[in-house]
């Protein structure tokens, strides 16, 4: 009984994040009777959480593999036996994404927020256009030299709205990972931002 389904994802889906999503689901659905599923999947979720936040360690990848195998073999019911599958298969087919997260603190899909940053390409930004400034929910965008716009990295929450609203003829907002690749532009003190 039951049905089969297929989910199609493109390069904008982070496979580490997808694995973390399924483990979050498992932790919520686990009945809690047996040790491997109850406690083991919590460990898997914690490790994947840390990796997607850029706090992954080298030994985490090996631990994910061994712990997943043991949970698969040690669990009492089908939930526990299949819960580690997203981790095991994504480690198998998308190991490069895991490595990028752990070794370079980089998310290849540009999905994991702590590992990404937005910035405005000053060559493409048009003077006098204020669309991004108005849409930013945390007022992180300010006017810099030549009346062009820049993003204050300390304030930015990486919602991506500025990228959505920037007119297609300019297409000036860029997203990068790791976040250090985004140029830091200082707000000039005393100069009013365009929203004032």
């Amino acid at each position: 009984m039951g049905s089969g389904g297929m989910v199609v994802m493109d390069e904008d889906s982070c496979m580490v994040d997808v694995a973390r999503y399924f483990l979050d689901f498992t932790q919520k659905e686990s009945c809690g009777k047996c040790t491997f599923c109850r406690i083991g999947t919590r460990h898997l979720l914690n490790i994947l959480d840390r990796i997607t936040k850029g706090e992954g360690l080298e030994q985490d990848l090996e631990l994910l593999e061994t712990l997943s195998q043991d949970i698969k073999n040690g669990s009492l019911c089908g939930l526990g036996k299949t819960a580690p599958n997203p981790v095991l298969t994504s480690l198998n087919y998308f190991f490069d994404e895991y490595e990028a997260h752990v070794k370079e603190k980089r998310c290849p899909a540009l999905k994991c927020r702590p590992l990404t940053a937005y910035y405005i390409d000053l060559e493409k930004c048009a003077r006098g256009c204020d669309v991004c400034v108005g849409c930013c929910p945390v007022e992180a965008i300010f006017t810099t030299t030549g009346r062009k716009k820049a993003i204050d990295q300390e304030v930015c929450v990486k919602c991506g709205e500025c990228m959505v609203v920037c007119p297609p003829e300019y297409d000036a907002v860029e997203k990068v990972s790791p976040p250090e690749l985004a140029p830091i532009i200082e707000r000039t003190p005393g100069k009013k931002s365009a929203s004032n």
Partner: protein
Amino acid sequence: MVNLIVDDKEIKAEEGKTVLQACLENGIFIPNMCFIKTREHPHASCRLCFVEIDGLDRPVTSCTEQVREGLLVRTDTPPVRRLQRMGFKLLMSAHHRDPKECPVKGSCQLIRIAKHLKVGLKSRPLELLERDIDEEVDLTFFTYYPFRCVLCGKCVYVCRQKNDHNLLTFANRGFDTTIAFFGSGDPVDFPCHHCGACAAICPTGALVPKPTYTKAAAAGDSASLPEKGELLSFVQIEESTGATVFDK
């Protein structure tokens, strides 16, 4: 009686018994936390009693395998040890060790299992887990220590066996599972007879009777907690095997 071979040793067991029962009765120790001798349907929740049986490609829990004539069992293969050690480390990652306060220090089933598996009591490489619950929980007649509890379910089973009502129960779900006690309001109205069986059967000392109820017993109160000798007559933990024997 059936004959089976465990670790190259021939043993006999009554038909209908499980491999775990057969081994423990014959002096072969297999790590277990949730096993009760006279319980018909094993709880099978601790996932520590793994063995390898000839013909099966993966380790299985010995508490759920019936004995059969000519069964070939191994209790010490690398796949078995790997699962047991990981299971043990998982338990220790959710367990707060407090050797000074712990009422079962020295006799704790976890220490016994650690020695058998030749592992330490630390949960490394797993980190110690945080839980959204207090260190001590008031359950009216006793104090419950969730960070000592391994959720083996023995206390719940014993309470149901001894009383008409099931006063102890599992509550919540998943990682937040805990033991809860039915009833609020005036403790005089509770059907709990203070038999203390739950506290006595707990392998990790997670249920500790409150001193006030012990004092009440000493004063000749009708709702009295039996003396230690009385408790042991219906709940025994066998020294040699660590199996819990429960007679009604």
